[in-house]
């Protein structure tokens, strides 16, 4: 799952998100593990790097998407300078960071959103796949059923411009 696959069905405020091209989504059996790694490195789950994974990687990548929507940046990123002096994504370093799995929740941007949102994000980015909840369990999470009052983030001007620079500068280099 990656944001490039998420499309809005209308231009108005009453939009729905549609997943397009889950592409050749793969059928799985509950206990079986897959060992082919696909997708962008930003959204890759730790167990995907190790090579043995199942559908729980979708929960991780949804957590990465949520992290980006809150902060404007992916939770794991690293850059290096190439031989032409350009800043490029350091895929190997990003993989190392994901394998360590340390997510930074200290950014003050997290104070703009309800405190109930952070536990949901932490649950989605649970390092061990077996301990990571399923999507159907996450849907009962309290934050998804409340409405934000004034004082919580009403719009994210700064964040949307961050997403803009992040997407156009680095996303194509982020393909594994």
């Amino acid at each position, binding site marked *: 799952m990656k944001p490039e696959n998420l499309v*809005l069905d209308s231009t108005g405020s009453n939009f729905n998100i549609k997943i397009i091209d889950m592409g050749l989504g793969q059928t799985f059996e509950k206990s079986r593990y897959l060992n082919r790694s*696909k997708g962008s490195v930003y959204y890759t789950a730790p167990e995907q790097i190790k090579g043995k994974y199942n559908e729980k990687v979708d929960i991780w990548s949804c957590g990465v998407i949520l992290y980006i929507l809150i902060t404007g940046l992916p939770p794991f990123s690293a850059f290096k300078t190439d031989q032409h002096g350009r800043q490029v994504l350091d895929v190997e370093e990003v993989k190392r960071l994901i394998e360590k799995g340390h997510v930074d929740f200290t950014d003050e941007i997290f104070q703009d959103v309800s405190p109930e949102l952070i536990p949901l994000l932490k649950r989605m980015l649970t390092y061990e796949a077996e301990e990571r909840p399923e999507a159907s369990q996450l849907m009962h999470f309290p934050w998804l059923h409340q409405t934000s009052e004034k004082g919580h983030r009403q719009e994210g001007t700064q964040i949307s411009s961050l997403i803009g620079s992040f997407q156009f500068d680095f996303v194509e280099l982020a393909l594994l």
Partner: protein
Amino acid sequence: MVTPAPLTPEIFPYKLCSEIEMLISMDHNNIVNIYEYYLYRDQVFMVMEYLEGGELLNVIQNNPELLSENNIRKIMSDILSAVAYMHSKNIGSFYATFGNLECTAI
């Protein structure tokens, strides 16, 4: 929207057809509808639901209000609902890659 995709020998035609049939069989408000598909020479054409809103990250750049907490909640509810549905049908999205299946609207 009509999207041609180049076919690779490994997936053409049987595996691809069965995967597209699987996509067509999905019935969820947050998963794009695919109505039918055609194979023509080395390309597959899929007739998909028209989505006028555009790609999420592109839309966000011009509409920062989409990043209000209430809109993030709507976005995440939609995504999780679709993922829960897919997983209930034993379909994972993790195989998806734009690298393999380049979609171009024509």
